[in-house]
């Protein structure tokens, strides 16, 4: 039967090998040639949008790229989705929600009233636009019926 020494060798060896493979795969998938996120489209406005996104912990209710808190809608394709719902007025709707002085209450569920400035709201939209273009290996087709139709047709 396995000795303690062999068990230790299995632990140390296995750990070392998997860590090295993990680091190798990380370098590979973050390399320029493997980019699926249109990294070149990250403007200053997108970066500011991301910062506002974090400073207000939007992920504490919403999900984006499928990550977050499942209390409020997924926002990966939010502009497209609202464009469809509000006849091309998606951006305007998002702006009015973000700039509102009173809580937005879709179906009675409250969102914090962020009272953002016009500039801040535009940065958020830039952030959502960039997110919406990322290649998500098919996930965006599932969370956005709109995108699914577009791709299938």
């Amino acid at each position, binding site marked *: 039967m*396995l*000795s*303690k020494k062999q*068990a*230790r060798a*299995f*632990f140390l060896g*296995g*750990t070392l090998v*998997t*860590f090295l*493979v*993990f680091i190798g*795969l*990380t370098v590979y*998938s*973050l390399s320029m040639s*493997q980019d*699926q*996120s249109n*990294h070149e489209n*990250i403007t200053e406005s997108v970066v500011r949008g*991301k910062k506002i*996104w*974090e*400073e*207000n*912990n*939007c*992920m*504490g*209710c919403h*999900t984006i*790229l*499928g*990550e*977050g*808190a*499942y*209390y*409020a*809608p*997924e926002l990966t394709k939010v502009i497209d989705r609202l464009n469809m719902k509000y006849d091309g007025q998606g951006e305007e709707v998002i702006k009015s929600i973000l700039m509102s002085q009173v*809580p937005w209450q*879709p*179906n*009675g*569920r*409250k969102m*914090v009233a962020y009272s953002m400035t016009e500039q801040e709201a535009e940065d958020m939209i830039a952030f959502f636009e960039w997110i919406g273009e*990322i*290649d*998500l*290996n*098919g*996930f965006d087709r*599932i*969370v956005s*019926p709109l995108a*699914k139709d577009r791709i299938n047709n």
Partner: protein
Amino acid sequence: MKYKSQKVAYWFFALSMLLLVLQITYGFIMGFARIGFDNLHDFIPFNTARAVHTNLLVVWLLSGFMGAAYYIIPEEAQRELVSVKLAYVQLISLAVVGVVAIVGYHFNYWEGRKFLEIPRPLDFLVVANVLLFLGLILVTLFKGKRKTTTALVLSMGLLFAALLYLPGMLPFDSQVTDSFFRWWVVHLWVEGVWELIMGGILSFLLIKLTGVDREVIEKWLYVIVGLTFLSGVLGTGHHYYYIGVNKIWLIVGGIFSALEPLAFLAMALFAVNMYRKGEKKHPNKLALYWTLGAAIVSFVGAGLLGFAHTLPQTNLYTHGTLVTAMHGHLAFWGAYGMIVLAIISYALPNLTGRKLYESTRGRAAYWLSNIGMIGMTVAFGVAGVAQVYLERKFGMDFMQVQGEISIHFVVLILCATIFTTGIILYVIDFYKHGRPNDEALELDN
């Protein structure tokens, strides 16, 4: 207890209990918000409650792990801690960082990256705090009379946990890379190094409670933590399927995630077998319950329910739904919550000298909290599966689906009440044991 300095563990456990109760309170706030009672919205909106709930989870578990280390390391190394005073400094600073972070969340002072909401300046304090803790543990171990595998695995887990906090502090402009490295912390903690910590505590408890030979237990400990890393490190890939990185992770993550339950299965079989092999009848039955419970529930919660949605084909639909919350609750409870409660149940009679090994209250605490948590898991599961079908298969609107599934949150709150009753009984038991004292020193064996 065998060494006076082990007493410091008591205060880490006490902090842990306090934070657990607070965590549950915020859980209720979220549960009620989901069924339409969001009356606290102006003071504690959902995103605040959520950040507090998850961060308190991390801090109460860490406080429990640290207490466990301060209890276990002196006994394993056979010497007193190098500095008790510094251990108290570390305890107080941990409490201060925790309190400042939690209070800050109520005033929009945070960094909204799921699980890592602690704002950057406080991150540095966390690092200083953990360095101090590690220094105390490692120097004690280094100067000790013996270096056991159990102590080494536990310390290695704590050291890696500290190192892996750092990738979470790197700044990125891209949400994709940001998310990528956030998982280095979150996943590699809970499905990697924390399992080392769990394995270390588990093996210490099994040695003490079953009386099985240390050599046998420690050999299997190596095999189990080996399996954990072998599957868990590349298993990180299951978080990378749909966040905008390479498709290679669909294959790597899928295969290695499928192996992850094996490590937990091994852990459960190991604990049960050692228990059956053991001849020593340790009187502390409650500690034994919690220990075996942790090994078994972690297999179900972390192993099986995790596997239920880590294959890419399933995850495509469940990613970002309540199915994740279903798995998360039972996994954290089984793997980490229960092992912390196990070490507290074991250590408390030794620290205080009051051998309340068997009590109706203690047993009720065990069963109520477990039954309540299983009920909560089922409620989350039903809500999550319904959400997946309605929203992602049939394309219904998110908010409409939320209305349809809100009834499951009524059930969730009922089960949470049973769970909470159990936890309150546990805390009462903790309180009834009284304070640690020097007369509790075990001088015999």
